[in-house]
């Protein structure tokens, strides 16, 4: 059972990687908001870039999550 326990612990540790992606996505949206309040006229044209950036940052968190699931069930 020790190996089993280690597996769960490992899965939990793997998902800590999502913290970075959470910080990144929060940072992206926060910076966007700060910029948008400063220059609201230019904000609408940058929404596409916003989501692409958020998606790129999020992908790495998702990677950690998938790894966690794989360790848990694999």
């Amino acid at each position, binding site marked *: 059972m020790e190996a089993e326990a280690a597996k769960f612990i490992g899965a939990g540790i793997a998902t800590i990687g999502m913290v970075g992606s959470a910080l990144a996505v929060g940072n992206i949206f926060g910076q966007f908001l700060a910029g948008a309040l400063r220059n609201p006229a230019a904000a609408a044209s940058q929404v596409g870039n916003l989501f*692409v950036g958020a*998606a790129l940052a*999020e*992908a790495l968190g998702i*990677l950690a999550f*998938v790894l966690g*699931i794989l360790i848990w069930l694999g």
Partner: protein
Amino acid sequence: MADPIHQFQITPLPGLDFGEVTLPVIGTVHLAFTNSHLAMTLAFVLVIAFLQVSTSRAQVVPGRLQAAGETMFGMIDNLAQSIIGHDGRKYFPFVFTLFMLVLMMNLLGMFLTFTATSQLAVTATFGVLTFALVVIIGIAKNGLGFFGLFWPTSAPLLLRPVVGLIEFFSFLLRPVTLALRLFGNMLGGHVALKIFAGFIVSLMGVALAGGVGLFALPVAALSLGMVIALTALEFLVAFLQAFVFAVLACIYLNDVVNLGHGH
């Protein structure tokens, strides 16, 4: 029932299981019309029905459904033209097809018990398809100049091989991240939904035993609130991931379509 992973199980529909064959290279292949195929077919039919209804009696002053169809159309059209530029119209059908299929599969997953886009096989197909198209267009349009994509002329000469190598690997990783992003979002969202829904059921079971178990009631209510909030979030994610997939497909296409004369 309480297994949050069980929803991803692929099961052949009754009467449509054709057994397994072993092919060279690919390995064992289970030939069957499964629930995944059913979900894909439903999404496919719904997309066609939606487009047919919204465009069949297209008028200058749009009706409600036509307005919805045109909103989707206009969104992807703007996307393609603003990212790829003048050539955007040529690649619009591909991006639009991609977007509509992914969006409809994501949305269907919110109503059915099975989500096609939570299957890595499906998202990997989308990712590899996009990647293959990018490579084919790149080579067809630029010939060997396609490899200029990995030769960053803006970097110092000494660093170029290193940067180029990094560029090359990140290019190879594109289908992987494309597939994993969609897959992971759908997987994570639906697992979380199922886990919280499972909490409600098991906590209500505890509460029904009475006594101290009644303390489980507020927690069950909390779980219910969480399920509702997550459902709303999942609808947003369903749309957002389809949109992001389309945006990234446009960006990757732009890389090779406008290679060498960045705009």
